């Protein structure tokens, strides 16, 4: 029924180069501010945490401060949907690693530095930067890349109160069952894309594109974290959606350019009804205008539906919908 893009098997050197380039791009984005914590630092959550961990230290609540190791708790997503601007430059790289078969994940390092103890009533804001991608390395779990990112939490006066370095190993599982039981996955709180359940096979996403010789380059690009726009090799005309012939000059010599990944909303809709297979409603679909001069359709993610407007700045992001299909999507950009 479907013609899913064939899993691309470019040579390891080119995969490595692509991953590095994506990682460099992500790193170049620098620190990206996330959504402020849903709740201020508060006594009930501290008491609950201390009880669960068996930590009887009276100093915290006596002095109106939180246990320093709770720092990450304040900005956990919990069971809520992605909130406004709660995005991270980490996700794209992890999606690309997944797309290349590095679907296993174990956390390897967590380092936290506390500049001061946070006080009751303070509302913290996290900020994340992608730091490095190192590999491929042979490890006991299989070949993999070490991805590192840093989170800084800011207080209400915008002063850093704590920092964290987090490192994970994304590895190519030796079997399709995921990591062997001798070395089960650990956990990587802090990044949705790296949650350990993703080491298992995912339900196939039902809405697959048909792909043929004229369009394969686009979907291969997406698998590698590139937004490829068809360019006529003779007259230079850019064209999206692509096709076999240049309507401007009749040439069939086609190449592509890699889009900058920036865009603006040209139009958009919010889908409520009826239910769509593989999707949770409501979701946003937009016609995105690229500075390169073409338009492309995609979902807007990491943004409340009522915050979307025509003209808003976007940046591309890549999301793995299952173990094979990656789709380009759009998150609010820096304006």
């Amino acid at each position: 029924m479907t013609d899913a893009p064939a899993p691309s098997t470019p040579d390891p050197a080119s995969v490595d180069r692509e991953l590095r380039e994506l990682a460099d791009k992500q790193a170049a984005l620098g620190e990206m501010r996330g959504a402020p914590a849903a709740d201020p630092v508060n006594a009930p959550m501290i008491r609950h945490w201390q009880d669960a961990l068996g930590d009887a230290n009276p100093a915290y609540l006596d002095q109106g401060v939180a246990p320093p190791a709770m720092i990450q708790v304040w900005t956990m997503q919990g069971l809520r949907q992605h909130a406004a601007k709660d995005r991270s430059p980490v996700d794209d790289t992890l999606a690309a690693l997944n797309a290349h078969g590095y679907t296993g994940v174990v956390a390897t390092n967590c380092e936290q530095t506390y500049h001061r103890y946070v006080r009751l009533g303070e509302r913290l804001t996290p900020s994340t930067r992608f730091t490095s991608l190192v590999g491929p390395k042979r490890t006991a779990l299989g070949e993999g890349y070490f991805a590192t990112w840093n989170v800084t939490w800011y207080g209400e006066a915008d002063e850093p109160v704590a920092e964290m370095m987090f490192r994970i190993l994304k590895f190519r599982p030796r079997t399709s069952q995921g990591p062997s039981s001798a070395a089960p996955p650990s956990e990587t709180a802090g990044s949705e894309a790296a949650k350990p359940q993703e080491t298992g096979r995912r339900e196939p996403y039902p809405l697959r594109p048909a792909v043929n010789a004229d369009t394969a380059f686009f979907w291969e690009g997406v698998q590698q974290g590139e937004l490829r726009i068809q360019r006529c090799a003779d007259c230079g005309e850019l064209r999206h959606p692509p096709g076999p012939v240049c309507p401007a000059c009749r040439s069939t010599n086609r190449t592509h350019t890699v889009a900058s990944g920036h865009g603006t909303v040209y139009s958009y809709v919010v889908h409520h009804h009826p239910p769509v297979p593989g999707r949770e409603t409501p979701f946003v679909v937009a016609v995105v205008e690229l500075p390169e001069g073409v338009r492309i359709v995609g979902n807007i993610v990491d943004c409340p539906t009522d915050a979307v407007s025509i003209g808003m700045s976007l940046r591309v992001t890549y999301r793995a919908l299952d173990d094979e299909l990656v789709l380009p999507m759009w998150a609010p950009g820096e304006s």
Partner: protein
Amino acid sequence: MLKSRAAIAGIGATEFSKRSGRSELRLAAEAVFAALDDAGVAPGDVDGMVTFTQDTNQEIAVAREIGAGELTYFSRVEYGGGAACGTVAQAAMAVATGVATTVVCYRAFNERSGRRFGQPDARLGGQPTSQGLEMSWHVPFGLMTPAGWVAMFAQRYMHTYGATSEDFGRVAVAMRRHASTNPAAWFHGRPITLAEHQESKWIVEPLHLLDCCQESDGAVALVVTTTERARDLRRSPAVITAAAQGSGAGQMMMTSYYRDDMSGLPEMGVVGRRLWEMSGLTPQDIQTAILYDHFTPFVLAQLEELGFCGRGEAPGYLQDGGIELGGRLPVNPNGGQLGEAYIHGMNGIAEAVRQLRGTSANQVSGVRNVLVTAGTGVPTSGLILSAG
């Protein structure tokens, strides 16, 4: 020239319902019989058949059911509801050129109780045909229902011209007002207010439920013959003064988001120019129009593309009952597809014929010329029918 060479001599329909309880082929046969009886033509006289590519009833199957003899012309028109007036255009061409003498145009479906067009179908983008590939730029993102495809245009139209959801709502209110006094309409006796439109649930923002036409089971058939012969038949003919199909540059099936303008309907502009040119008429010569209304926003865009008002002026044109009975241009006196039934535009052509005959439930006075359009957002078609 095709102008005035052919006419619609008969119209027929089944009842419009949510569950016909009959096969689509049976619905087709019933509607064709009704149209033939209306025209006073025997099944054995039918030598041509035209329908939509989406129709599940092959021409030969319908011909067998009605007891037609030999066929010399059979054809299908593409692009969903955009085919409606196109079936008549092709029938007119066939009779004008002598390829056939009596052509039946039909559309029959159980669109509510059978396959519903508004439901997402994951197979839309599944095949690497040109259409499957076109859909593949949209379906993976969940943009896969007609309401979604139209909403994308509507949002841009609102942005460009400052139109509001209430402007769209005025179309729905007008159609439901018309349907309320049409006994054949599903929504007979059930008008709505603008407030009810605004309160109806979101389907795909910016479209509310009441911006979307209903889903219907039913069939409509039309008999097309030469104008000369039609004059000898039982009913006064609805002369096909002009007929046109139109596709714009950079056209896609419902998702033409990649060309310069997203706030108009260039393909309807093509149809409009051809209709005015062929007929020699102007918008002032039209007493009532049947504008395809599967979704309200495109009624505004059509008023503009066809020259009833300027670009971005449709919201003003709709004010104060502008398209209601008694208004500047009564649109869809039958209640349209929002109010009467969704038979892919074919029920609107039948209403145009009734208006010319003077037999509509909501008769507009002094009707000489009726403009009819087909599906919007897709390659489309249109007619100007005149009292003969």
